């Protein structure tokens, strides 16, 4: 196990200007009974991926509230991570035949990590399937163990889930990002949303000059409507469907389309999808397909802020935090009703849901012709994120969980 290093600190007090002093006071009130008590968060990677990103922000905030929290990263060989990658895809529903050797590798690395760790904090939070078998180290009448599952378990591969379930059932509770992802389990299951950090580079306020510069670099006209989808080049994000919806809307409204995602150079499937997208976009100078560097938070932020409408036309989605990012920037969002999106986009209140290319095109036309409604959706969306999907709310949810677990004991 390695102890993970957390990112540069943003003091808790800095969040007062975003959420208000009363909300900070509330966090302090909730943390007061937990002062000096110990929490351990364990996942399988210190960098990259949404879990590491969230823990990087969450841990320093919890420390400021005098909760003794530490974050540790599970170690494993290449064989372990190959197996867990296959498990991950299988739990998402991909066909996979797990062999006894796969299970053996999984068990062996968990056992090694159990031997290296004290695992004696009062609250132990295990993230995702990789370290799930650490629960075997739990002492009788001991501490509280919870499992945070960040993946969609709505259609899991039966063999892999049956194996994992034997461990998950031993926890005191499990947390999922959507009720749809939960399983029938003998333990309590809670709804835990992912979160965005309003002060991180991807979400903080930007100077208008910087936004103008980003648009100019990509030859995007700031004076015409801009439709944007931010997502990796993946068929499940349906970038080709977005282009088709844009084309229908464009018959009636002058607009541009920006499809921006991470580089597809190290992802063979992504490169194929990117080619499909470029082919679909061919001949239309108003479609900008942008391959951004692996981590370009300020650029993503600028593109979202410059957008007239943000689209997330996924065919399948985990939670879809890009939706919260756009809503936070008061953008009207049109998104598919899949995964965690309907939690963020309450139809006709904080955005519009669509179920097809034609439906998406209709909603684009509707919002372009009703800017006052678009503005109101954006305002409500911002409030919705503030109330439910900010990192401070996530911290509050964890504090509440620890208080509830302590009370139940």
């Amino acid at each position, binding site marked *: 196990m390695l102890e993970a290093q957390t990112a540069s600190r943003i003091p808790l007090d800095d969040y007062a200007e975003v959420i*208000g*002093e*009363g*909300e900070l*006071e*509330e966090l302090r*009130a*909730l943390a*007061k*009974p937990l002062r000096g008590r110990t929490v351990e968060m364990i996942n399988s990677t210190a960098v990259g991926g949404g879990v590491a990103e969230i823990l990087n922000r969450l841990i320093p905030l919890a420390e400021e509230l005098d909760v003794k929290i530490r974050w540790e990263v599970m170690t494993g060989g290449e064989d372990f991570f190959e197996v867990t990658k296959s498990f991950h895809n299988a739990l998402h529903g991909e066909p996979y035949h797990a062999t006894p050797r796969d299970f053996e590798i999984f068990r062996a690395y968990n056992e090694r990590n159990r031997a290296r760790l004290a695992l004696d904090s009062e609250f132990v939070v295990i993230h995702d399937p990789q370290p799930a078998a650490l629960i075997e180290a739990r002492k009788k009448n001991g501490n509280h163990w919870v499992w945070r599952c960040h993946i969609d378990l709505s259609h899991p591969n039966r063999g892999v889930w049956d194996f994992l379930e034997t461990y998950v059932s031993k926890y005191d509770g499990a947390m*999922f990002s959507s*009720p*749809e992802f*939960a399983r*029938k389990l003998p333990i*309590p*299951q*809670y*709804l835990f949303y992912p979160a965005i950090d309003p002060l991180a580079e991807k979400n903080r306020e930007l100077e208008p000059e910087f936004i103008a510069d980003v648009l100019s670099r990509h030859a995007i006209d700031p004076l015409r409507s801009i439709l944007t989808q931010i997502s990796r080049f993946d068929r499940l994000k349906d970038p080709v469907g977005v282009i088709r919806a844009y084309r229908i809307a464009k018959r009636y409204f002058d607009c541009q389309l920006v499809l921006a995602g991470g580089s597809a150079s190290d992802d063979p499937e992504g490169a194929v999808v990117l080619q499909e997208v470029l082919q679909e976009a061919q001949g239309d100078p108003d479609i900008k397909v942008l391959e951004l560097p692996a981590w370009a938070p300020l650029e993503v932020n600028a593109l979202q802020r410059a957008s007239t409408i943000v689209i997330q036309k996924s065919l399948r989605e985990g939670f879809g935090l890009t939706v919260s990012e756009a809503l936070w920037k008061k953008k009207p969002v049109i998104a598919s*009703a899949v995964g965690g999106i*309907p939690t963020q986009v*309450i*139809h*006709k*209140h*904080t955005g519009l*849901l669509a*179920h097809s290319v034609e439906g998406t095109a209709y909603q684009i036309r509707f919002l372009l012709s009703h800017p006052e409604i678009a503005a109101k959706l954006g305002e*409500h969306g911002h*409030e*919705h994120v503030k*109330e*439910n999907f900010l990192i401070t709310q996530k911290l*509050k*949810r964890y*504090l*509440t*969980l620890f*208080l*509830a677990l302590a*009370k139940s004991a």
Partner: protein
Amino acid sequence: MNTSEMPFEFFTVAHLTRIGNQSAATLAEFLTGLEQCSDASIFHHTFQTLGSHHFLTEGFSNDFAQWALADANRDALAEQLTALDIRDYISIAALRADLCRVVREYCGAHPEFAHQTTLEPFYFCESVEVTVPFGRTATTLDEFRQGIEHLSHAAFYFHFISSRLRLQLRTNDFSHWLADGLGLKALADSVNRIDIYTNTLDSARGKLIQLIDLERRKHVGSTNGEPHSAR
């Protein structure tokens, strides 16, 4: 200005959402769910959701109505569910009975829709509530005003909205204390009339503070020998 012998203690509340084992993909299943789900589930989808969606002041009333509108595509049913006002209920049992009656009557009148599959299922969840002291108390109207100003949304919600079930009265913690603790019955009634459906928690708080300020001015006026008047 009066001092109460019984201080008002500010609390805050935090909710965990527990995912239930029930879901509904048709109106008929939805009715069964409403009949069988826990009280904590009815609370979660009505009282609690009003607090967490307080910023929606046009047409959002509870999760049941929103699902009937957006996922079941049944406008008339949604309208009836929206119209159920939680201020009329001091028990979950009474609220559940009315929710069930509305859905049962709708399915009876439109049997063709009762078994139609909805766009998305309704997942019954429930609230697990944790309350902690906010660390403030008030014995005078001035201290009370200060406390109100610094409350979080959840704390304001706890005292102003969900307190009705706790008190089992058609009032809220603030009005209850203003009337019983400070003897300000008229102010208590005005506070209880602030509409929680057409106000956000912030605007409701703003109105409450306005009403308190009006009351304070009356007392300053009376100390100076001026007549009592609500300007």
